[in-house]
């Protein structure tokens, strides 16, 4: 029965429709696997009892002929999505004890489609990080091990590190992630799974703990392109409760997987080949280009001239928005409270005790760049450069249908690496941040292993609201890559 955890969502869906096994059996298999893999620390909160109830209800719905698109599929939910009656932490001390009285739109849609939720997945505190090391609930271990240094503990990437580790370790069939600057794509690459940040506005942000509201976007993480397409079809859609969610119909993403990319033009941006890009990343990128050529697509060299300014732009815009969003944590309405002599004293003590160092750093930078006298020099300047970065993509998409790049500049790194200087850690997101600033869909899929047996990801970037082309091309690359490697102990 443990083999049930190795099925893809599409396989489990089709098998359950045939009556091969029940949602209860599938859920129990996952609950057992979760218990066996607690050392990864992928889940902050396991909700086994709730999952069993949901599975039972799912089996009854199926018997009644009312199966939804994700009927009986066990999923994990990033602990940034508010879940009714289940503790929601954002991996921060400051939300201690917070149990939302409501369900986020995206997780609610998954439940309405029949999904079973296994628990709340670990992440970097408030989704700020690229290593999942900033969680108040402890770091997450990447289930993959380097063959050259098997004793080394590797990070799963971040911020959706728990989601990526759980899907890779087969303790969730799929998971929700959120992506502000690469938080779905980089951990997907580090853990050898597939994840897509859809176009900004495709999924409702309502009920997701806010980090940087002009960038935050929910998306699926799963083991195949098809599984991501199935999940996104359920997660997406207009929501009157999020005024930035797009009033657009949701296409049948799964139907886009035709396998036919003949005649498509694939942009290869020359700025994504900086000096010092590692040979292994370069090689996997070349391999990706070759696969697309074999399938009848045409690579076209393009230029995205403002690429090098994306990282500094992001590190003004995102902290600025975060400093505003996180002002709500005041010790008053929810979460942690540290008593003080005055109201101000209580605010300051609560926020000092409740926020970790990376979050505090970003709030302070954001506060500074928004403060009187510096707003124009920093924030307004960054918003202008952001427009130039977005326009680079608009220009490029006049020539090409999709863009192919590496997802991250390296494979998963050790827990003791990249920790000295915040800017070094941020460099992990150099290939994902431009897409976020432009609001475009970006998908990462595993393309191969490096010399140490660690997964490497490639990123496909599409036009706004053209996830279908991204999925179609990703499906062709996935078929060519034949990535069947498994992490340790799976």
């Amino acid at each position, binding site marked *: 029965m443990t083999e049930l955890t190795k099925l893809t969502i599409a396989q489990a869906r089709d098998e359950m429709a045939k009556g091969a096994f029940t949602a209860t059996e599938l859920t129990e298999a996952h609950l057992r696997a979760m218990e066996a893999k607690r050392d990864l620390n992928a889940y902050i909160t396991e909700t086994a009892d709730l999952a069993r109830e949901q599975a039972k209800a799912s089996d009854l719905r199926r018997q009644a002929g009312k199966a939804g698109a994700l009927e009986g599929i066990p999923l994990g939910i990033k602990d940034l999505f508010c879940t009714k009656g289940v503790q929601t932490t954002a991996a921060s001390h400051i939300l201690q*004890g*917070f*149990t*939302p*009285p409501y369900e986020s739109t995206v997780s609610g849609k998954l439940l309405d489609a029949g999904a079973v939720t296994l628990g709340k997945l670990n992440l970097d505190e408030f989704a700020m990080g690229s290593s999942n090391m900033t969680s108040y609930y402890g770091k997450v271990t990447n289930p993959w091990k380097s063959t050259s240094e098997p004793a080394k503990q590797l990070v799963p990437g971040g911020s959706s590190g728990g989601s990526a580790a759980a899907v890779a370790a087969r303790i969730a069939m799929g998971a929700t992630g959120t992506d502000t600057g690469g938080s779905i794509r980089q951990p997907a690459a580090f853990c050898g799974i597939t994840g897509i940040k859809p176009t*900004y*506005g495709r999924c409702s942000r309502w009920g997701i703990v806010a980090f940087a509201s*002009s960038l935050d976007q929910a998306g699926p993480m799963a083991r195949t392109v098809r599984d991501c397409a199935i999940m996104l079809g359920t997660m997406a859609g207009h929501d*009157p409760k999020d*005024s*930035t969610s*797009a*009033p657009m119909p949701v296409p049948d993403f799964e139907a886009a997987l035709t396998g036919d990319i003949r005649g498509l033009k694939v942009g290869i941006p020359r700025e994504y080949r900086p000096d010092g890009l590692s040979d292994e990343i370069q090689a996997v990128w070349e391999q990706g280009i070759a696969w697309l050529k074999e399938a009848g697509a045409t690579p076209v060299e393009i230029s995205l001239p*403002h690429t090098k*300014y994306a990282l*500094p732009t992001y*590190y*003004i815009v995102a902290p600025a928005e975060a400093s505003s969003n996180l*002002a709500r944590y*005041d010790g*008053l*309405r*929810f*979460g*942690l*409270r540290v*008593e003080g*002599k*005055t*109201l*101000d*004293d*209580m605010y*300051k*003590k609560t*926020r*000092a005790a409740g*926020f970790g160092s990376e979050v*505090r*750093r970003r709030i*302070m*930078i954001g*506060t*500074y760049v928004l*403060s009187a006298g510096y707003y124009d020099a920093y924030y307004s*300047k*960054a*918003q*202008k*450069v*952001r*427009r*130039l970065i*977005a326009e680079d993509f608009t220009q490029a998409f006049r020539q090409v249908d999709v863009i192919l790049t590496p997802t991250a500049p390296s494979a998963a790194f050790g827990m003791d690496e990249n920790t000295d*200087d*915040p*800017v070094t850690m941020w460099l992990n997101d150099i290939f994902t941040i431009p897409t976020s*600033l432009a*609001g475009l869909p970006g998908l990462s899929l595993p393309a191969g292993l490096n010399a140490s047996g660690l997964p490497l990801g490639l990123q496909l970037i599409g036009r*706004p609201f053209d996830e279908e082309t991204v999925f179609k091309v990703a499906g062709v690359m996935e078929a060519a890559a034949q990535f069947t490697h498994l992490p340790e102990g799976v």
Partner: protein
Amino acid sequence: MSLDKAAVRAIAELARIEVADEELDHLAGELSGILHFVEQLAEVDTNGVAPMSSVADLTLPMRKDEVTDGGQVAAVLANAPAADDGFFTVPKVVE
């Protein structure tokens, strides 16, 4: 721009985060490093470029001005660290 201890103290005050005096030096170094990094944007010519506040090319929608939710005092207060008689409570602000 390099920040000194006084500047960091002022930012912390604005952000309502208590910072111990012995942490100020370290934070000043870290925040100055970040500012130095982002200041490379100065070299980009942005004359005539409008600031981009959102990628969503949408006019914020209007809806009917009517109550759609409310009357949930118990649910709203359920997560409060301290509440009394239907209100959030705070330290005394008036002597």
